């Protein structure tokens, strides 16, 4: 296989990147990869390049919101720095960030530690959602006996919070 850049030397460095949900492959020879700064794995990691490559394209794409309402940060700022402005930016630019996060981390749902303070409210929130769902279902099925029980449970839950 020949190098994609110089098309003369044998490719020895195979780079795979996921940009825009599509896999992109680049094959480089030793010399060209050195020139592009990708041979030295000590200073190079795919993720380091991502804010410079995939990030801009992702966030630019079809984002209706131009400014973060909390901090005034813009997509152009992200393009420049590869960093976000404030925690709210994650919601402001959620649509564009989704693909970027997937490319970086492969997954997009946090499964690790949760602050103890939020653990309870997150659990309660999930429980409330479930009860509401069951209640709606019971009402739809005209199972009023069950619905009354669920309604009481939901009320109790709301009281405790």
């Amino acid at each position: 296989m020949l190098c994609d850049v110089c098309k003369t030397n044998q490719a020895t460095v195979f780079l795979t990147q996921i940009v825009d949900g599509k896999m992109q492959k680049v094959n480089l020879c030793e010399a060209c990869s050195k020139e592009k700064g990708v041979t030295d794995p000590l200073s190079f990691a795919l993720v380091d390049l991502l804010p410079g490559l995939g990030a801009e394209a992702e966030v630019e794409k079809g984002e209706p919101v131009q400014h973060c309402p909390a901090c005034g940060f813009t997509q152009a700022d992200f393009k420049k720095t590869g960093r976000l402005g404030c925690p709210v930016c994650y919601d402001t630019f959620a649509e564009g960030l989704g693909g970027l996060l997937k490319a970086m981390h492969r997954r997009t749902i946090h499964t690790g530690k949760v602050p103890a303070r939020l653990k309870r409210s997150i659990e309660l929130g999930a429980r409330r959602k479930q009860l509401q769902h069951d209640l709606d279902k019971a009402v739809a099925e005209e199972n009023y006996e069950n619905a009354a029980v669920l309604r009481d449970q939901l009320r109790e839950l709301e009281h405790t919070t």
Partner: protein
Amino acid sequence: MKISSLFSSNSERARNDGPHHQIVVSSRVRLARNLSGHPFPGWAKKNDRLQILELIKPPVESLPEMEGAFSSYLQELSALEKQVLVERHLISREHAAKSAGSAVVVNKEQTLSIMINEEDHLRMQVLQPGLQLRNAFQALDKVDSALETKLDYAFHPQLGYLTACPTNVGTGMRASAMVHLPGLVLSEQINQVIQAINKIGLAVRGLYGEGTEAMGNLFQISNQITLGEPEEEIIAQLNKVIERIIENEENARQILVQKRPGTLLDNIGRGFGILSHAYAMSSKEALNLLSFLKLGVDLGFFPPEKQNDIDDLITVTQPAHLQSNASQQKLTPEERDTLRAQIIREKLKAFPIPNTSKVVIPRPPTEETHHE
């Protein structure tokens, strides 16, 4: 604690007693955290940063782990002091560039360091000698849990801990081990190993992290992914990979001893010779040669107690350490190289020449061997 006593005290991680310490120099885990309702440091105005700093610094200083700690605003530190902290891996190079609005708090043992307003509001790390990723994580997790009762962390139900850079979002955790791999370098297997590590989503970097060169056959291996895997799993996976690398390095060393003793002895012998007799020595050359002396100790060519001397030399010959120990005001690079060579020569005077009795020293073919 004053910075002078911090610098003069030997840090706990400088003691080489951690598990697998011959190959794993140190283990580090860091967590990135931010306060909700505040812009990240890079986007915050100076006043915001000062306000955030005063919110974070008191609870950090009052942690039980931080009793008798060294705590300083960045603007109070000289460029040299910052550089010494970088060389000790207590602050990042990025943090060293900060001034008013940022701070650093380091515990007495120099195993726990918390940077305030680096790239994130909080960057905390635990550094321990040898392979102790799990211990390091548990120690840091405890600190984090204590701080979360006092600070309102920015946390997203789906995305986890929110960080300035999307590469850290989720756990905000980067775990890494610094490994010494002269065997894999000498046997030219290192590139294969690095490629394999990269393939499974781990990063390999040089001595001072991102974008730094590998010197002295030292490599930093760390996780890249921070979203979608629990902390314990990330640590367990990294640990498994490091254990495999240790095996590979040990095998490479054994094969060198048995099959290529000439190459091995030549590198160790040259390292010893040059270090013992040079009158000018750059930090890079010193580190590269000291790496082979370290290997020499590991393989029994030097007495085991010499390891401490070598590790000391590796620390004190770094540019900022050298300057801070010098009596003279400001050394030129040439003067530093002269001083470095002198310190090394002094230390190596007490070294015996390499004991080669355990290996078969290759000899040039003679008539006798031809007849055999």
